[in-house]
């Protein structure tokens, strides 16, 4: 006997593939925004801002398909949990795109200011840390790999540490008014990258929900003092 809902399950796979594409777009947007910052590349920053529309379009496309599937197929059990996770990931990835846009807009706003290499280095490092987090979380999602999902919150720790030390990094610029003017917005960049890390942890939590049916919040050391 062939599986009676083969067509529906193919649809679910299509939605999942689209979501993976969207995750790639959001992750690359974050990477490019950090590149634009580090290289002081205004044209690249403008591109990141413009390309956010592509992420939004993807969002709408997947959301449309999602609604249709819910209406027509009434999924249950693992399929229902998958649909629930998909919606959650969809919103999370859209916001990740917004964080990339925020960073890129800051790059444009501070054009021409004197820069502080240590801060730039820390932000570049944060960018290098959060991108693999997103990839790992999505890989755990695609592979339905619980153990891999659990690695994501661990990867978040150095990101949080760098974000916390950013205040000191910025304060050290205080004697030089011009550098300080450049450095204060870097707190926002740091905060945006820390949010991307949290979003990757969110995705990993969704993987745990998908696989177990129970929602569990992964421990996020030292982020509690920030409001989200």
């Amino acid at each position, binding site marked *: 006997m062939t599986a009676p*809902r083969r067509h529906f399950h193919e649809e679910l796979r299509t939605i999942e593939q689209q979501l993976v594409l969207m995750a790639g777009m959001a992750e690359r947007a974050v990477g490019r925004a950090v590149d634009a910052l580090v290289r002081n590349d205004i044209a690249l920053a403008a591109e990141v801002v413009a390309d956010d529309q592509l992420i939004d379009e993807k969002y709408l496309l997947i959301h449309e398909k999602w609604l249709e599937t819910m209406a027509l197929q009434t999924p249950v059990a*693992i399929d229902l*949990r998958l649909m629930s996770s998909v919606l959650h990931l969809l919103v999370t990835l859209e916001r990740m795109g917004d964080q990339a846009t925020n960073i890129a807009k800051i790059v444009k706003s501070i054009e021409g200011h004197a820069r502080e290499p240590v801060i730039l280095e820390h932000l570049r490092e944060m960018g290098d840390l959060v991108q693999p987090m997103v990839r790992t979380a999505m890989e755990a999602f695609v592979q339905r790999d619980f153990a891999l999902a659990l690695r994501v919150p661990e990867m978040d720790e150095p990101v949080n540490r760098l974000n916390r030390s950013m205040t000191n990094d910025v304060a050290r610029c205080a004697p030089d008014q011009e550098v300080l003017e450049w450095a204060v917005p870097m707190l926002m960049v740091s905060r945006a990258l820390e949010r991307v890390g949290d979003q990757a942890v969110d995705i990993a939590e969704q993987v745990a929900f998908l696989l177990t049916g129970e929602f569990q919040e992964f421990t996020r050391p030292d982020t509690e003092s920030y409001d989200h």
Partner: protein
Amino acid sequence: MAADDRGIVIAPAGVPGSVEETGPVTHAMETVDMSVSYGSFRAVKNVSLQFRDHQITALIGPSGCGKSTVLRAFNRMNDLIPTSRVEGRVLFHGADIYEESVDPVEVRRRVGMVFQKPNPFPKSIYDNVAWGAKVNGYKGNMDDLVEQSLRQAALWDEVDDKLDQSGLSLSGGQQQRLCIARTIAVKPEIILMDEPTSALDPIATLRIEELIQELKQRYTIIIVTHNMQQAARASDFTAFLNMDQDRAGRVIEFEATAELFTRPAKKETEDYITGRFG
């Protein structure tokens, strides 16, 4: 909660999210290691289920797994099939309905049944409802009983001005509600329903589902349905039956409906309800 290898299941402790009930949980109907055979063919085996008072329990499973067979065992309808044999115990308020001393007619009065196809008698609407009560020697006011039963079946407003018309003149959905009124009129405690909406259109189906929700205030309901969405919408508990290699049906999982349709414990249940079996 899932059945063990012998199909032994203990009733779920409570419906998640529902208001904590006061008082002990009681079961109107319970089977202990029940098997039903037709001649030498064992159709269902080792069924142990407990049906809670004033709750709706759905039986789901693939065609031929024995849902109707199980349901018929609950009011000795299988007695009417000469080759059939029931083993194990079927307890109605703790007493075995297959004891020698038990009158099957009395069992069928207290455990009523609504069938797949509406089957009103070719008589007036009034007589359809009054008939069973008359046979049972009902002494009260018959007009009141008919009205009360039709009201409970959510049909009164549509037929109160034509009680003398033939039951067969009603629409399919109305006929099914008439059959429910007929069942209610003899004051059963349990109502068994075997695919009660499979012959109805979607609106009539939803009306019956609404009605079932109303009826659970007064009755314990056990419903067989092919429509998984119906089980999900209309029941508090769901038992999933499947066939073994020897084609005998058994209980795979018995759980609060919301739990079964979001987090089934058994892979076999998941494969069935998500349409992945085969």
